[in-house]
């Protein structure tokens, strides 16, 4: 049995049926990491020994008949911007190279409550700023479908690790597309929940009003299962909503008859790769065949979303990243004669170029004299974007778009051109701006065999609708049976 190719719900069945032990599962992943991590470079920190030890303990508990969750003993990978007590949380930055948080993020607590086993911390663009994971201070992660291409970003480590079977599932975070776009590039499933559904406590903030943690998984059922674990009100996060707990797996009905799908035509215009467009059109046909009602409409505010996003995200980032000042924790320069130099040199030496670029941009748009023209205007546009989406959801259950205008690009081809890199987020940012849930699932490959992602956008707290729509497509299309990354061939 090829353990690491199984989905989590398959692993869970085998655990329950006593066909597998937790140790066997974790050992399989440890072997896989030892074999393939050198090529993929998905991890910042691996916790193989700790994970094996934990697996043995859980097996013992299960044997002794102790009450454990159904998922106890299944491993997981965590993006390296979620705080883990006693394990480094680096945000892939020199600034936090040796930072060990004294507490667990709420989502990490929730994983612990289920006795999930942390296999390690996954690589990312520094402080989640980027779309290729090339802005990691430590290493460039490869896309398992083609090692000289990027896995996307910023949760590139999480998506690559899932695609390469280095972890069965992973947590990512999404500020402007950072879960969905790498999931699309790596041919896996990535869900960004509604803003406020998952606690942000312990997620190192990039842009507080946009950040959301979510699952990156092999299939839609796994995504629903991981969402079940991490969703829920947290009194430590004032922006988390207090809504009743749901079982999202119950939404997976494999039926889209009568489902109203809106196609915002702006997402299929200029700049979208023709092969991507073609695969999306095929997907639309499949939905029609399955009984969904599909209609094209105009979401014309969309063209302002990217600019709005970069203003708001950078403004918040410039403030959020102020705490990395070399005073209490993190990198401190050795080269300073006074306080100003301590600040300036610690931050100049500790942050990479993309982070600095965004801090400067954010500082600028909040400055007196520019605030009204940029930040305030962006907030006004944000309100309009929300209204446009509200209007769309009066008519449609879900919206369907490409996740990214292109497939994964080659390493080094965009990292020198920030604007081109920013365009990778063009299909995903408006979902964050409006605080909506969005899921990316694979809907085919291009002529080079590189995966193409489809994004389904739902109304606030209507994760069930997009999960069901995604699941139904997945069951019909069977992407996982048809295509495998370079690694599996």
């Amino acid at each position, binding site marked *: 049995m090829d353990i690491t190719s199984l989905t989590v719900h398959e692993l869970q069945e085998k655990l329950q049926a006593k066909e597998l032990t937790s140790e066997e599962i974790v050992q399989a992943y440890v072997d896989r990491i030892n074999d393939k991590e050198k090529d993929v470079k998905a991890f910042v920190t691996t916790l193989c020994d700790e994970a094996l030890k934990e697996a043995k303990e859980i097996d013992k508990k299960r044997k002794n008949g102790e009450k454990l969750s159904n998922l106890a003993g299944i491993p997981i990978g965590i993006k390296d911007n979620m705080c883990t007590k006693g394990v480094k949380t680096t945000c892939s930055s020199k600034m936090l190279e040796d930072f060990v948080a004294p507490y667990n*993020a709420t989502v990490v607590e929730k994983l612990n409550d289920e006795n999930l086993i942390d296999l390690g911390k996954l690589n990312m663009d520094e402080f989640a700023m980027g779309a290729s994971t090339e802005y990691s201070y430590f290493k460039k992660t490869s896309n398992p479908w083609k090692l000289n291409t990027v896995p996307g970003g910023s949760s590139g480590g999480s998506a690559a690790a899932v695609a390469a079977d280095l972890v069965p599932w992973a947590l990512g975070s999404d500020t402007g597309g950072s879960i969905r776009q790498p999931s699309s590039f790596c041919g896996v499933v990535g869900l960004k929940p509604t803003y406020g559904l998952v606690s942000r*406590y312990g997620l190192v*903030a990039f842009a507080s009003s946009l950040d959301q943690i979510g699952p990156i998984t092999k299939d839609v059922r796994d995504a629903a299962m991981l969402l079940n674990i991490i969703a829920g009100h947290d009194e430590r*996060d*004032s922006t988390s909503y207090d809504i009743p707990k749901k079982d999202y797996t119950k939404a997976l009905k494999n039926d889209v008859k009568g489902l109203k799908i809106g196609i915002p035509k702006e997402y299929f215009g200029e700049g979208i790769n023709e092969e991507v467009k073609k695969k999306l059109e095929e997907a639309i046909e499949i939905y029609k065949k399955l009984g969904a009602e599909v209609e094209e409409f105009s979401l014309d505010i969309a063209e302002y979303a990217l600019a709005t996003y970069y203003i708001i995200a950078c403004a918040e980032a410039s*403030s959020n990243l102020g*705490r990395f*000042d070399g005073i209490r924790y993190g990198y401190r320069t050795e080269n300073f004669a006074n306080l100003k130099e301590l600040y300036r040199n610690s931050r100049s030496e500790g942050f990479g170029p993309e982070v600095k670029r965004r801090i400067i941009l954010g500082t600028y748009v909040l400055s*007196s004299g520019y605030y009204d023209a940029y*930040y305030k205007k962006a907030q006004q546009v944000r309100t309009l974007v929300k209204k446009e989406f509200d209007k769309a959801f009066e008519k449609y259950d879900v919206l369907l778009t490409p996740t990214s205008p292109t497939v994964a690009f080659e390493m080094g081809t965009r990292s020198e051109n920030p604007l081109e890199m920013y365009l990778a987020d063009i299909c995903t940012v408006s979902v964050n701006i409006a605080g909506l849930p969005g899921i990316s699932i694979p809907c085919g490959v291009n002529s080079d065999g590189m995966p193409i992602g489809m994004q389904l956008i739902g109304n606030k707290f209507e994760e069930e609708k997009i999960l069901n729509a995604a699941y139904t497509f997945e069951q019909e299309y069977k992407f996982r049976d048809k295509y495998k990354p370079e690694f599996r061939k």
Partner: protein
Amino acid sequence: MSKSDYESVMGLEVHAELSTKTKIFCSCPTEFGGEPNTHTCPICMAMPGTLPVLNEKVVEYAVKAGLATNCTISRNSKNDRKNYFYPDLPKSYQISQFDKPLCEHGYVEIEDDEGNPKKIGITRIHIEEDAGKLNHNEFGGGSLVDLNRAGVPLIEIVSEPDLRSSGEVDRYLKKLKSILQYIEVSDCKMQEGSLRADVNVSVRKKGAKEFGTRTEMKNMNSFKAIQRAVDYEVDRQIDVIEDGGKIEQETLRWDDVSGKTFPMRDKEDAQDYRYFPEPDLVAIRLSEEYINDIKENLPEMPESRRERYINEFKLSEKDAKLLTASKYLSNMFEAAEKICGNAKVVANWLLSDVSRILNEKELEPEGIPFKAEHLAKLVELIEKGTISSAIGKKVVEELFESPRDPEEIIKEKGWIQISDEGAIKEVVEKVIANNPQSVADYKAGKDKAIGFLVGQAMKETKGKANPQMLNKMFKEELDK
């Protein structure tokens, strides 16, 4: 032109630490002191990934302060970030309120220099967090950061530029302090920095409509220093203008030793705080019901207490006003009155000897070291004749030195009044023998001489003899 041709204009930004048990955004204690960085957690130390959660008590206290100063309470308010770098500010931004403060458009009433009532406008009251403290490192270079105070809740009370003299500034501050103490939202301990003021000062020619350029003195925490600083700064500004100079808008530091203001050494080149709405917190929405509930439960304010003292205890208006100026003093008065039932005498002790000693020691009423029970006991001891009021004064002094039961004090010190007839007679005979002139005066009809003789007898007994008995016995002896 002379100084009397100018008018001074002052406005205050008063920061008061709220006396909530926990900090504004985490559950660390707000207690003053403690070993450095012991009242801290990942949130108030701004560890990566932590988030603030607004303490509801802070909102309640600020609304109380707003209602007590006649403000309009915003139904819809929010928090904002004020961004700047300093080592005592761990997040590199202070969570404060920018354009939607909790309370606006209020006033407090004080007396102007002529004793007429005057309203001082309150522009706004907003909530924010305090910063930590930097301690000079005694073991070498640099500074040490103590974040115990970081996140302690503050309200900032901004006044209109309605103050016209240092006396008004002083009365305004004392009034604010009294109000905040009455509604029990701040202990206003100036020595501990829980009440501090930024004072804006400008001058203009009398009758001018435009304000002059202002200077600001930051973080003042003594009434006396503020008064002196305002007087100095007003004079300095007039001198500058009279000499043909111009006032520069700047932040000044008051040096209490030299009695002068100096420009702040580290003059920040025009700080841009880049305020923007705090995305980690949700809007503060207050219902009519919530605000009314707080309004109805506001404690008794000084004005109504004053009326009650006049009606219930028959105190003079002046005494009632003095007592109620401080809630602490007023509470002590009420507690002592309840025990001994003698309002007037209790008030007298508090307003004469106790207040005098407080003044000498430069203490606020909160600095009274003894309890209301002690004061009540003192009043009772005098009433019963166990001690004289002269001894009473000494007991008060002693209560300030080492507070304990007055009965114990007088026993220990041997201050119990001599009321034994035999002993009194002995003293009276001795004094009569030693003062023939006074005796002669008395016999010649000068009744006053008796007073002198009683005085001599008190001296002889170190104040312990019962004065009524002395009086009576002298008369009996001399009239024989």
